[in-house]
């Protein structure tokens, strides 16, 4: 119960207006999709952290910043690196959480349909402070989503080339999957790997080393790396 009272003190303003459609989707439809999240998350006036952190005020909040919740190292690092939740970042995260933050403790495959995500975010946004005026509203006008064409996703990587390219990754990322300070990248589904690398390449994910490394890789090279690392145990 200690957690609950702490939470109440911390959350000054909760806006629980009725469902209202906004440009991002339909909040009422979003409420239905939100049922998938309820197993772990709470939102609203009585919300507290459960398996997942409470979601009040999530728009405009730094990633991994709810007091008292233990986040994965990866999400914590991204928060430290400056990741703030806004429409675009949340949209990318809930589309495929593991591709966005490889070690996230959110064991959820994601919402693949863009319309459904827009509805869900419209629903959640009602629980953030002055949703229309939050400073992070501006970036939502310029979409930063990694929008990967089917052609890019369809590229079949050359694992032999990937192995050579991977030698550049293994200066920091350990092939045996150990993770002390730098995340493991072996055995990911290829598509998740591809999405993650393009997210760095487009400077959508915040880490400067990775933005640089991914920035000069071609679509074929990203596919080659995904094929090589995906094939490792």
């Amino acid at each position, binding site marked *: 119960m200690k957690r609950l009272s702490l939470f109440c003190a911390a959350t000054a303003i909760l806006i629980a207006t009725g469902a209202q459609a906004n440009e991002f989707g339909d909040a009422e439809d979003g409420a239905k999709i939100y049922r998938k999240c309820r197993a772990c998350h709470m939102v609203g006036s009585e919300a507290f952290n459960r398996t997942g952190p409470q979601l009040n005020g999530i728009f405009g909040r730094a990633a991994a910043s709810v007091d008292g919740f233990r986040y994965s190292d990866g999400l914590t690092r991204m928060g430290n*690196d400056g990741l703030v939740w806004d429409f675009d970042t949340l949209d990318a995260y809930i589309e495929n959480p593991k591709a966005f933050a490889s070690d996230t403790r959110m064991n959820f495959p994601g919402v693949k349909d863009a319309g459904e995500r827009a509805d869900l975010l419209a629903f959640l946004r009602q629980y953030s402070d002055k949703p229309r005026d939050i400073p992070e509203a501006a970036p939502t006008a310029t979409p930063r989503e990694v929008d990967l064409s089917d052609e890019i996703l369809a590229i079949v990587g050359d694992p032999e080339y990937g192995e050579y390219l991977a030698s550049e990754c293994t*200066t920091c990322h350990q092939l045996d999957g150990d993770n002390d300070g730098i995340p493991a990248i072996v055995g990911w589904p290829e598509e998740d790997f591809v999405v993650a690398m393009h997210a760095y390449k487009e400077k959508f994910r915040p880490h400067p080393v990775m933005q640089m490394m991914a920035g*000069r890789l071609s679509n074929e090279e990203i596919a080659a790396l995904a094929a090589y690392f995906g094939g490792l145990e």
Partner: protein
Amino acid sequence: MALNRRTFMGATAGAAAATLAAPHVYAASHGGKPKVVVVGGGAGGATVARYLAKDAGDALDITLVEPTRVYYTCFFSNLYLGGFRTMESLAHDYGNIASAGVNVVHDYAVGVDRDAKTVTLASGDTLMYDRLVLSPGIDFIDGAVPGWDVSQQNKMPHAYKAGSQTELLKAQIEAMPEGGTFAMIAPPNPYRCPPGPYERISMVAHMLTQMNPTAKILVADPKEKFSKQGLFEEGWNTHYSGMIERIGPDFGGNNVSVDPDAMTIDIDGAVENVDVCNVIPAMKAGVICERAGLNDGNWAPVDGATMQSRIDENVHVLGDACAQGDMPKSGFSANSQAKVAAMAVRAALTDSRMFPAKFSNTCWSLIAPDDGVKVGASYEATEEKIASTDSFISQTGEDAALRKATYEESIGWYAGITSDIFG
């Protein structure tokens, strides 16, 4: 992989002709599997040997020549001074490289006959090679700091090759009298690890703040500017205010001599008594490069696409010893160059594929507990040099959480690179 020589040669010709000239001299010169000799088992040499064994162990005969049985990394040796690492945590042996199929010879290369393609060892043994890889690191230029030569290294340690020198420096700092002076003679460009001396100053300052807070740090520096200067100076002001004095070339930091017996240093005519003096002299490629006739000036020029010597295409030179262009002399760079060299050697001697060279480097430095910064760049090989294509650097004024995350990342990097080098 049992390869019949004739089919092997046939398969090689196409791939190799596209990339490197005269690839199959090896067959004529020696017979048996093509021989690769790697001199130096540090960041560059150990990586090359391990990658060749991993990727082409059956097709190549690989020998690594390294005098020491235990390699202490220079990287993180400053953190040992600061009390953040033990010396044991910096120690790596060659067990995994040997089990990967490399013939590890603990000896010292004293000469190279490039016509006969042989390397002579201190023991008198001779090794034949089809390709030679040199990654001997650095040696110091005689007379660079008047009054100092290597025979004085116990009085005035360089601690720029890690191990007993680093331990000695730490012991001397611990023995400093209260309010005493630690001096550093910083090196001119180019030298191993551009931020290294300044990370060291930070770690010594941290040490002194704990055990001898009235002590002073005096740095004589021949360079106008240095790596991550803004970040270091910001950190020194925040954490070690008033402790560190740096004398640049404007005030004679480039006109320095030392007297190891008297424990004095002379900066532009002003003589100071000091309690510890860390002399980091000007550097050159490990002497074997000079002996092999591969230097142009102090360093061995190479072609970045393959890391081949510009003077002899059968020799690849990597790491600190080579003159390649824009990459700093770092363990990260040596490891990165080693992978390009391994690929090129393999493509020249077996039928494997050749890919375009890519390089990168990131150097993390620790300024104070949980205050880490980094600088990095990516590179590619052009006709004339390895050229930087993109770069980044930590910013002044970053918040504590980000600095801590950067430090933690460096710990991950150390674990990653040492397992990449030594297996």
